[in-house]
């Protein structure tokens, strides 16, 4: 038995391999750092670091045009940067899975994270995205699996939101 509390990033990486993910687009988040390292170490996955998250929606669309499956990794604040760009996968019927590490939802320290963290699921759903939440480490792999399957089987933007309860809240030493 693996220890989900520590291994959930490795379980996501294993799902990327199982689903044949070839492009990973991201704006870094501390919660994704272990997964990012695994992807960077894999020569079959092209990792693109973005200047803003909405670029990732465009990148994944371009990759799918060329026959490659992609995933966008970001923090919940970055979801706000993607909203209008979600019209691209919706109109084209592009599989566009997103894995979002949450800020501002559980024990948050930084007031600026609260507005977008509180609105992440609502605004994604308002833009036609299928959203599933992972509240415990054990939830993460099955939820990400569902998000990948829903995207690639039904051609639309989908998202897993990984709770701060899984990641742990950043405390700034307080």
């Amino acid at each position, binding site marked *: 038995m693996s220890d989900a509390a520590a291994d959930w990033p490795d379980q996501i990486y294993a799902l990327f391999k199982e689903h044949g993910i*070839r*492009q990973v*687009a991201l704006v870094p988040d501390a919660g994704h750092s272990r997964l990012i390292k695994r992807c960077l170490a894999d020569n079959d996955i*092209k990792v*693109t*670091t*973005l*200047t*803003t998250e*909405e*670029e990732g*929606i*465009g*990148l*994944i*669309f*371009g*990759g*799918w*045009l*060329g*026959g*490659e*499956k*992609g995933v966008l990794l970001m923090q919940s604040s970055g979801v706000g940067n993607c909203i*209008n*760009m979600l*019209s*691209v996968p919706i*109109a*084209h*019927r*592009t599989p566009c899975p997103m894995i979002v590490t949450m800020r501002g939802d559980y024990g948050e320290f930084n007031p600026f994270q609260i507005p977008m963290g509180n609105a992440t699921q609502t605004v994604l759903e308002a833009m036609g995205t299928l959203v599933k939440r992972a509240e415990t480490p054990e939830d993460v792999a099955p939820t990400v699996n569902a998000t990948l399957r829903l995207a690639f089987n039904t051609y639309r933007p989908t998202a897993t939101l990984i709770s701060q309860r899984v990641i742990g809240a950043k405390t700034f030493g307080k």
Partner: protein
Amino acid sequence: MQTGPTGKLMRREVVKTLLADRGGMLAIGGLGAPAWDITAAGDTPLNLPLWGGMGAAAVMGLGLAQAQPERRVLVVTGDGEMLMGIGSLATIAVKRPGNLAIVVLDNEHYGETGMQETATRHGVDLVGMARAAGIADSRLVRTAEELLALHQAIRAGGLIFAVIKIDEAPQPLVLPPREASILQARMREAIMGPEAHLQ
């Protein structure tokens, strides 16, 4: 080659020239006039004209170029569209795809919304910004000779960023299909065959 009242190159002729003898080259047209321009040059499954996604044309080209490294990918977009996604020049410069060319048709105006001036009208230098990002072959095109040299460079390969100063006179609308799922599916099928729909 014809020039407009301003003495600048004409957008339709420019795009037709760049897409001549294209072989299997894939083209993405930024929303607005560049999408109509690539359509006027001849609508084909190798074209992906955009009806939205402002600011993302260049980075879409990056995703496509990474997925199809054996194919030439050309992004044709406008100055307003490029300015909205200007950070993507950093993203693209770092990845350095050797099969991507980005061509900005710069009329120094937002053409679809009433010809308001863009930042390039006020001296903002997109070529300088691309070069500073690290795209070594970043060039300004003003003449027919420079356009032909760009056409040859695109055929030869390498990461290229070009700004072409074009006449601002609007051209007749030549609209591509508006159902975007068809635009996506037809390009995927042109690249991968019917298997594309079973991926």
